[in-house]
């Protein structure tokens, strides 16, 4: 482990001085507190709350502010030639070290109030996966924006080595606002629409408009006089419209000013964000490959997400968070994703393009169709069983209709997922593709493979249908070639990492 909590080591007086966090972090927190108090007071005044309720608001808020002030007072950090150290904690004191040669990433984030006060949060990652992500990162919340930037330069500067002075920042990609169209090609659009309705409801409730007893019944009365069909269609459209506007806003917030640059030492840096600004630095030596993800809707529009497969971006459990940190591009046209992938990997052609993917045999299709059939049978089984038992004919109809629906949709997805399957080797990379709702194509560095796993169900013994998994230190840790026949899967694995499997392989005469 590179980060530990131990007693203060002796004999370190000669090294760098202990520094405090920027005092403006307390002011920024105070500004949030003031906003909370003003908002609470405004709502209470509007609703005519009694004076003691008004008076009670500042107590917990000021308490939190005091705690923040104490936290600032008790947090110190310093940079020595060998390591960075942080002492912090109000109740539980901790003293953590990260040796500088273990530093793999330095991320800088500034939330809106931080930006008003000119400060930013720095997260130093070690790239170690052991334990929780908290153990693997060291957080300084917050430093002056300038100090944060120079700390990053300082910590990652060693990578630069002999190339000191060549400050040629190479811009690999920038935001193109034509990509905004991909924002609405997302399954989250109706969800965002629903969230907007929920938010509106809460707001009305908060200001005392009594949505339950007054507004909703009135709306209901008004709507029930109208023809139901246009009402349903129009409200669905309105929901989607609101959701689409929300998606566009979110896309703009996330990707405003997006820039992917290669720093002089080879590290990749992504900067982006409108309200909350983020800056993520990936050291090139952590890079193990690239993942292109194409959810169904986005795929229909010809777009894709691009993620780095890199060590130290987080554990498999917090995939969502690490996806956010390992994104190399906003949802963008597939061609652009390929171009940027090639640039990032320093290849002439993106490996997912240059590869000749081997399609999988029909066993994989049959397996998927069988699963879809089973699902339909299960879904239908409950109402049919109940229908027979209770002698209720309508339940039987529900049963067979739902079975047919599940079979039809399931068969479509089965065929689509089967067509997506593929694996191959190109240059330094192995490539695998699978998935229908979200099709993923992963290009993984062959020298980044740190083991193999082969999984097979007992009933696939004769056909040899297996899953071959390459394990790696980066990204999600394991990348699968799904539903491949064992001989072909083994040939692929042996081709990707020559010599490793050979000692365990034997030829079996075909039956």
């Amino acid at each position, binding site marked *: 482990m590179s980060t530990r909590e131990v007693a203060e080591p002796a004999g370190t007086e000669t090294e760098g001085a202990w520094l405090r966090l920027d005092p403006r972090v307390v002011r920024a927190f105070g500004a949030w507190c003031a906003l909370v108090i003003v908002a609470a007071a405004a709502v209470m005044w509007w609703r005519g709350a009694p004076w003691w309720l008004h008076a009670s608001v500042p107590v917990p808020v000021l308490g939190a502010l005091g705690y923040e002030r104490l936290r600032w007072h008790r947090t110190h950090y310093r940079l020595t030639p060998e390591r960075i150290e942080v002492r912090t904690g109000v109740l539980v004191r901790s003293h953590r070290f990260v040796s500088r040669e273990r530093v793999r990433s330095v991320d800088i984030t500034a939330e809106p109030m931080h930006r008003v006060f000119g400060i930013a949060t720095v997260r130093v990652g070690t790239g170690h996966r052991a334990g929780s992500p908290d153990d693997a990162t060291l957080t300084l919340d917050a430093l002056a924006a300038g100090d944060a930037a120079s700390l990053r330069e300082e910590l990652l500067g060693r990578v630069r080595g002999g190339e000191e002075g060549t400050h040629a920042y190479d811009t690999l990609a920038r935001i193109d606002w034509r990509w905004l169209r991909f924002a609405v090609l997302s399954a989250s659009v109706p969800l965002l629409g629903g969230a907007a309705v929920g938010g509106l409801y809460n707001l009305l409730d908060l200001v005392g408009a009594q949505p339950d007893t007054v507004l909703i019944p009135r709306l209901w009365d008004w709507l029930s006089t109208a023809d139901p069909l246009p009402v349903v269609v129009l409200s669905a459209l309105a929901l989607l419209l609101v959701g689409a506007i929300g998606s566009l806003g979110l896309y703009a917030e996330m990707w405003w000013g997006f820039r992917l640059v290669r720093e002089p030492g080879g590290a990749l840096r992504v900067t982006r964000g409108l309200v909350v600004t983020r800056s993520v630095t990936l050291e090139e030596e952590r890079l193990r490959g690239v993942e292109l993800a194409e959810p169904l809707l986005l795929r229909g529009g010809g777009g894709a997400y691009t993620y780095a497969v890199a060590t130290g971006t987080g554990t498999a459990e917090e995939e969502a968070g690490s996806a956010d940190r390992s994104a190399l591009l906003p949802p963008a046209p597939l061609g652009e994703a390929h171009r940027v992938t090639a640039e990032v990997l320093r290849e002439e052609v993106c490996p997912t393009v240059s590869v000749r993917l081997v399609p999988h045999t029909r066993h994989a299709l049959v397996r998927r169709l069988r699963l879809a059939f089973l699902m339909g049978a299960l879904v239908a089984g409950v109402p049919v069983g109940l229908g027979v038992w209770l002698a209720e004919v309508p339940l039987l109809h529900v049963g067979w209709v739902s079975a047919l629906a599940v079979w039809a949709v399931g068969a479509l997805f089965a065929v689509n997922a089967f067509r997506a399957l593929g694996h191959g080797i190109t240059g330094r990379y192995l490539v695998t593709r699978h998935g229908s709702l979200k099709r993923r194509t992963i290009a993984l560095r062959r020298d980044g493979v*740190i*083991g*193999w796993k082969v999984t097979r*169900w*007992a009933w696939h013994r004769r056909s040899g249908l297996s899953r071959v998994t390459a394990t790696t230190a980066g990204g999600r840790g394991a990348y699968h070639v799904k539903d491949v026949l064992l001989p072909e899967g*083994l*040939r692929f694995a042996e081709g990707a990492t020559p010599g*490793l499997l050979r000692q365990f*392989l034997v030829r079996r005469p075909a039956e």
Partner: protein
Amino acid sequence: MAFPRPTADELVLRPPSNRVERRSIGWWAAQAVGVVVPPVFVLVLLALLIEPARPWLLLSAAIVGVPGAVTAVVMPVWRYRVHRWETTGDAVYTRAGWVRQEWRIAPLSRIQTVDTVRGPLQQLFGLATVTVTTASAAGAVRIDGLEHGFARDLVDELTKVTQATAGDAT
């Protein structure tokens, strides 16, 4: 559905050379019994106490108990036939599972830690599990059901070999 068999010789994984301890059968059986018996016991007890719900409670006990009993009989023997392991000059190679079988290969140069783990049941049977972790989040390579002293020697040996290789195994 029938598929044409390929005509050429096909590649397969050979079984790793070593079986695990025979005592593991007892250990796996005890594990299965330990999982199945408590809920069945509670359900039967409730069935005895609660007269009106008796058929339903006995039915649930049967739904849990019968497959559980079958598992407790079949699984350990099946596992004993599948579970095998081997270490070579440059890799650890294991086979494990029963209905779902898993082969794993971890090159020695990528190993981060080697430990033994012994649960209370395993101690009772004088067994130990050797876990070999790599930098991957896909989980450790485990060799279940080794004799305890033997497992300790194996860990010592593997630790010596892996310490000799340089780098941070990522």
